[in-house]
C-alpha cells in the first residue's frame, strides 16, 4: 500500500503525469511519422498485418480499466525499457544494412529512441514517488537479437513501431487514469488502489 499522499507529492505527481501525457502524445506523433517513413523506406505495405513479434511488449490488455496505478506504471516501465533495447537494435541494424545511405531514417529512429529513454526515466520518477520505487534493471540482460532474414527483420521493425505507437496511446490513457480523482475523494488516490 502506498503511503498517504502529502500535498507536495500529489502536486509533484500531477505535474509528472501531465508532462508525461504531453511527452506520450509527442512520442506517438513522432512514432506515427517514423512508421510512415519506415514503411516507405523499407518498401513495405502499410496494410501488412504483422503477427505478434517475439520479444516485443504487446500493448493490448484485457480489463484495462481494472488495473491499479502501480500496475499501470510497472507495465509501462517494463515496456519502455524493452523498447529502448529494441530501438537500439534497430538503429544498429540500420547502420549495418544501410551505412550512410539513409541518414534520415536513422536520425528519426535515434530521435524516437531518445524520447523512449526519456519516457522510461519519467516513469521511474513517478514510481520513485511510491515507497517501493522502480525495479532495478541489473540482471535483466537484453534478449538476444533473433537470427532473421532481412524481410523478417523489416517486418519485426514494423511490429516494434506499431506496438510502440499503441503503447504511447495507452500510456497517455494510463497517466490520465492516475490523475483522475476516484469517486468521493478530492485528490488523486495513491496508486495502489486507483483503478
Amino acid at each position, binding site marked *: 500500500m502506498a503511503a498517504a499522499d502529502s500535498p507536495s507529492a500529489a502536486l509533484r505527481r500531477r505535474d509528472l503525469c501531465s508532462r508525461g501525457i504531453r511527452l506520450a502524445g509527442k512520442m506517438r506523433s513522432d512514432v506515427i511519422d517514423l512508421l510512415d517513413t519506415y514503411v516507405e523506406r523499407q*518498401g513495405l505495405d502499410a496494410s*501488412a498485418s504483422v503477427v505478434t513479434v517475439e520479444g516485443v511488449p504487446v500493448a493490448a490488455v484485457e480489463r484495462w480499466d481494472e488495473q491499479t496505478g502501480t500496475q499501470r506504471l510497472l507495465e509501462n516501465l517494463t515496456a519502455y525499457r524493452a523498447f529502448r533495447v529494441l530501438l537500439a537494435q534497430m538503429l544498429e541494424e540500420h*547502420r*549495418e544494412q544501410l551505412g*550512410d545511405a539513409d541518414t534520415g531514417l536513422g536520425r528519426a529512429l535515434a530521435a524516437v529512441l531518445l524520447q523512449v529513454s526519456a519516457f522510461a526515466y519519467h516513469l521511474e520518477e513517478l514510481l520513485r514517488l511510491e515507497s517501493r520505487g522502480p525495479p532495478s534493471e541489473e540482471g535483466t540482460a537484453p534478449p538476444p537479437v533473433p537470427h532473421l*532474414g532481412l*524481410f*523478417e527483420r*523489416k*517486418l519485426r521493425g514494423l511490429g516494434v513501431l506499431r506496438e510502440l505507437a499503441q503503447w504511447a496511446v495507452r500510456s497517455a490513457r494510463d497517466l490520465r487514469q492516475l490523475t483522475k480523482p476516484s469517486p468521493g475523494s478530492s485528490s488523486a488516490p495513491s496508486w495502489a488502489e486507483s483503478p
Partner: protein
Amino acid sequence: QNLKCVTHNLRKMACTWDVSSRRRHGQSDFCYTTNDLPPPVCFKTKEKRVEIPVPESSTTVTITTNSISGTAIATKQFEIHSADISFVPLTPRILSLTPDFSTSTLNLKWSDNGSAFPYGLDAFWQIQILRKEAKEKVTQVTYYSKMTHEDVILSWNWTSDMPLECTSHYVKIRCYINVTQFVGPKDWSDWSPVKEVPGKDTEPNGSGVFPQDTVVAVGSDVTFCCVHEEGQQIERMSYGSKVYPLIRLSSRSSAIRVLNASASDTSGTNVVCRLSEDEMDGTVLFVGYAPDVPQNLSCETSNFLIIKCTWKPGRPSGLYGKRGTNYSLFERISGKNVSCEVNEMNRERVCGFPVLADQKTYHFILGVSNPIGQTQSSLLVDLTQRVHPKTPEKLTVSGNSSTSVHLHWFINGSFAEIRLLCQIEISSGHSEQKMHNISMPGGKFSTYTAQLNTLHPYTKYQFRVRCSAADHFWRWSDWSRVEEHTTLEA
C-alpha cells in the same frame, strides 16, 4: 536364338540368348573357341547368359539346350565376329552431388573408370538435370574428357536459374566412349541412378522465400520461390509493388520469375509471398552495379607523414551498408595494404596511407569491390613531386625599421627532405599587391622566417603567405591568415 554379346570393358563380353522351344528345359552346354583356336572351352549354365573373353577376331559358340532330365533337345552354333559385339560402357557411378546454396550451384563428381580402358580414348558424358515432383528435364549437357588409363574423378558444376532450396534437383549421367579400334557397334551406357539434392519443400520446417537476401547485378533475371506448409495456399507473390504469375514447382513450392531487374532502393526490393490466413513471408533483393573503375586517382602528402589519395567513384553502385563498396589501398613496393573507411554518400573518396621510411616512390593499387564485382586503379607517384603543404599558421610580422619587416610562420609537417618555395603577398591600401617568392630548405615541424625590404615608411601593410615544394611544384598550400603591420616613420 538371338545370341547377343555386349562388352563393357573391351576384355570380357556378356552373351545372352533365347530358347524358342516351349518345352521345359534344364541346363545348357555352352562351348566357345578363343580366336577360332581349338580346343573349345565348354561349361554348363542354367542362365541364358555367360561371360567370356572378347575375341580378337572371332569366336565360334555352340549352345546345346538340354531337357530337365539332361537329354539334348537342340544344339546351335554361332559365329561371332568382332563386328557383332557391341560395346556399352558400364553405367557411370556418381561419387557426390554437392549443393552450394549460396550460389545455387551443384557440383557433380564421378569416376571415369579410366583404368578399364586404353590411354587416350575420348569419353563423352551426358548429364541431365531434372527438377520438380515430376522430375522434368531442365537441361542436358555433354561433357568431354580423355581417358588416361587411370581412374580419374571428374567434376562438373552447374548453376541453377533458381535457388536450390526451391525444390528438389536430380542429376543422372551416362557415358559414351569412342573406342576407335573397336569395330563393333558402340552405344551409350545406361543412365546412372538419379542422385537427389532435396529442396526445402521436402523438409518439415522448410518454409521461406528464397533466395534469402541476395545481391545481383542490374539487368539480371532472378527466380524467387515461396516454400510453404502443406495445405497452405499462396494468394499472391509480389516483387516490389508488382504481382507476378506463379509457377508451380511442387505442392509446397511456387516460384516467380523476375526479368531484367532494375536497381533497388537503399533498403532493397522486397519479395513478398502472401499466404492464406493473412500469413506473409518474404526476402529482400539488392540490385546494383559492380563498382566503377575509380577515376582521377590522385595521391599527395601535406606533411610527409600521411599520403592522402582521392578519387571519383564513378557510377554509384546502388548498394550500401555491408553490401557497399569496399576500398583498399595496396602499395606494391612495400607490399603494405590499407583498407579505407569511405562515406558512400560523399562524391569524393579519400584514403590515407602512411609515409614509409626511406621510400620515395609509391606504386599504389586502389582495389574496389562489392558483392557484384571488383575493379582497380593504379598510380605510380614520386612523393616529393606530390607535396601539397598545409596552410601556413601563426603568421607574425615584426620589425623596428621604416623600410623592412620580418615575417615568421609555422607549417605543420616534416619537409626536411625537400626545399620549400613560399610566396608572400604584400598589399597596402593605395598601391597594388606585390608577390615576393622565397625558397628555403624544408624543416621538421618548423617555423620559417623571411625578411622584406624596400618597404615604404609609415605605411600599413597586409601580409599573407603560402608555400609549395620548390623543386617539383605540385600545388600551393592555402593562403595563411592576413597579418597587418605598419612600418615605422622614416
